[in-house]
């Protein structure tokens, strides 16, 4: 920032000082200001994306260098026809995203509506219910791992109280693992949704409700016709950002279940990471990455269309 401004004010002397101060070379200045961000993103986002596409057309495996070289669309053909795990992990990814986003939206909306009310202890209540937002990733996993532990976790105490049985580990049983990981992810995901929605709720004018009140509209109708339409944009934004985030996010599943049991909780990104790290098949991992990228790009276009992002300020 300081640097950019200093450059902008540097010679060539040009117009007399006073004039230069008021207009401060506005033609070059915005470019100088976005340059650091632009260069960082070019180097560490754009270039890697391009190389992912490049590698996806290659056989590229550092442990089998003799096979390396141009592979055409082989990796993609393998993904779509020769790899049963691709479809199952993609299916699980979609299931994961849909369940997470729908539940997070509903619970987050409900939570936001509740803590938007005026009541005693609201500040504390907000701080407490939002607190898991600050605790993410691996820490969430470790907390829930403690809770789900078959020997000393909450199941034991529930069993003492007559619910369930001893020695169950919800994380290693295919019947319970999905609800278990979904619950853990909801624990940290709902607060974020609630914060975004609450922020928007606060900008609804009270006058609208008062007017509706005068007209005799019920609270449900007020919610449907005033609150929800007002929240539409915030909901679109948070839903799509969350969907992508839930799709990509690996740390919780990686540490909590490692994708197991029996691959039950492996998402596509988790599988890509394991292909790249464990079998060093960078070419195939890149092809899967490209496919994931296209899927996500589709989401982003949908988002652009729905929200008209980046247009005029209004």
């Amino acid at each position: 920032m300081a640097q950019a401004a200093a450059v902008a004010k540097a010679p060539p002397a040009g117009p007399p000082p006073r004039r230069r101060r008021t207009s401060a070379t506005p033609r070059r200045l915005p470019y100088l200001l976005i340059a650091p961000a632009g260069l960082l993103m070019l180097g560490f986002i754009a270039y890697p994306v391009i190389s992912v596409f490049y590698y996806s057309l290659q056989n590229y495996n550092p442990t089998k260098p003799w096979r390396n070289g141009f592979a055409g669309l082989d990796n993609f053909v393998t993904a779509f026809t020769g790899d049963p795990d691709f479809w199952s992990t993609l299916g699980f990814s979609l299931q994961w995203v849909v369940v997470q986003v729908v539940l997070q939206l509903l619970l987050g909306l409900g939570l936001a509506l509740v803590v938007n009310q005026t009541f005693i202890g609201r500040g504390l209540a907000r701080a407490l219910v939002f607190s898991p937002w600050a605790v993410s990733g691996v820490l969430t996993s470790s907390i829930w791992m403690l809770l789900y532990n078959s020997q000393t976790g909450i199941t034991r105490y529930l069993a003492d109280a007559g619910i369930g049985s001893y020695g169950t580990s919800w994380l290693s049983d295919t019947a319970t693992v999905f609800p278990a990981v979904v619950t853990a992810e909801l624990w940290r995901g709902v607060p974020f949704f609630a914060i975004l929605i609450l922020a928007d709720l606060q900008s609804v004018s009270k006058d609208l409700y008062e007017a509706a009140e005068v007209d005799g509209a019920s609270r449900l109708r007020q919610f449907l016709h005033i609150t929800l339409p007002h929240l539409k944009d915030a909901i679109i934004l948070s839903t799509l950002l969350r969907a992508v985030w839930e799709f990509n996010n690996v740390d919780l599943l990686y540490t909590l279940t490692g994708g197991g049991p029996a691959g039950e909780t492996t998402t596509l990104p988790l599988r890509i990471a394991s292909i790249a790290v464990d079998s060093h098949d960078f070419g195939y991992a890149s092809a899967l990455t490209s496919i994931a990228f296209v899927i996500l790009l589709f989401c982003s276009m949908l988002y652009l269309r729905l929200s008209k992002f980046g247009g005029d300020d209004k």
Partner: protein
Amino acid sequence: MTVKEAQLTPAATATASAPPAPGRRRPETRPSKKGSSWDDVPRRQIYVPLGVYLLFTLIPFYWMLLFAFRPTGSTSLVPWPLTFEHFDKVWNERAFATFFQNSLLVGVASMLMTTVVALAGGYALARFDFKVKRAFMLALLCSQFIPGALMLVPLFEIFANLKMINSLGSVIIAETVFQLPLTMILISGFIRNVPPSLEEAAWVDGCGRFRAFCAVVLPLLRPGLIAVGSFAFVHSWNHFLFALMFLSDQSKQTIPVGLATLMGADSVDLGALAAGGVVAALPVVIVFAFIQKWLVTGFSAGAVKG
């Protein structure tokens, strides 16, 4: 205006616990007395769902504290007698003291880099119309759809070429880059909320653009910047993938990786895991308590108006 006034009158902070003066922040805590139906929702409909949700939120935290402070082998539901054996173990034997320092360095450095770079970019996006603006905004948005996890291979190669593998610098850069887009969108939203006329007035008074920005705009942005900076810190503090991939020396590792290794063993030492969790949570809890009041306003000012 609230920020400036508070700054100019130190008394305002001294009397912060007194009833809020008219015109101070958070008018929503003093709703209009003539209740619309929205204000007199039955208490039951607030406290019951809130209570249930609070249980869901707090039981896991309690569980962590319980295991962290309870002696090994105890099955008591209260952590009594208190023991610090688990903390001693993770902090000294499991090198969490080192992880803690590394995480702190990564968190603070990426927070500063993110904020400064995004401030410059956000200012340009908020105040100027220029040729590539729309394309740049699009790029910011699209970058949100690019999975950091999926770019590990090329990123690894870049850092290997830069000879930055196994240096905290690689993690700092990666964390910064992946937080930049959203931070910049938020900050440009904050800046757009500051009337340009304020800055123009300062130019007329003979300030350069940079000085006018520092003197007029920056103080007004402070709450938003604190919120955004804290998000950045918390995110880098918690994030695990880049540290896992780019750092191989144990002495370079960060807290989340330390936690993951505690979890990875066949027989997990639950006490140590819980104590490690408490160590990992402590800084974010402090940051969170500090920014809590700006959290919601920060988002409403920046994100939603995009």
